């Protein structure tokens, strides 16, 4: 967040492109956020209990988790397509008057 713009100017001679690092870093954050939300969502669907009587994932939970990952990923693709379809308009129109 800090070295954008001004940052590239103050880059050391070691020839690091902070632009590039920045982009990779944002990508990493996005994947991590996606992953964390998938963990929570699939826990709610497959593992959540009102009381935990043991610490193992039983067979049913394991199968549920595996399918949940696949399904979550499909939802991500589908929503991505929807957003892309109207993305330009949406993004251009944002900024809510700032």
């Amino acid at each position, binding site marked *: 967040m800090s070295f954008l713009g001004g940052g590239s100017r103050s880059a050391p001679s070691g020839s690091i492109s902070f632009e590039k690092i*920045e982009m990779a870093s944002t990508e990493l954050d996005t994947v991590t956020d996606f992953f964390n939300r998938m963990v929570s969502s699939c826990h709610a669907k497959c593992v959540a209990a009102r009381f935990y009587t043991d610490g193992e994932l039983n067979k049913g939970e394991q199968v549920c988790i595996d399918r949940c990952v696949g399904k979550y990923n499909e939802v991500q693709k589908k929503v991505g397509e*929807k957003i892309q379809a109207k993305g330009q308009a949406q993004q251009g129109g944002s900024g809510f008057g700032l």
Partner: protein
Amino acid sequence: MDFSGMNQAEQAHMTKVIEKKQMQDFLKMYSNIVEKCFSTCCNDFTSKALTSKEDTCVTNCAEKWLKHSERIGTRFAELNAEMMEAQQK
């Protein structure tokens, strides 16, 4: 927001900061819609593919979220404009 107190170099920098934040916000909105629509629509874990019922639900859910966000954005911008006007009086 008003960035008129900034010099040109600062405004240029600020533009970059804003662009970056808009990108992050956009990605956050994206993963939020995925999470919310998945939670509401997906309840059948007998297969890993979306059932056609789930598919319909997710599509509509995403569509509605986008329209909802857009509408809130418009209203919010109006409100901010009103508040800025009120301040200048």
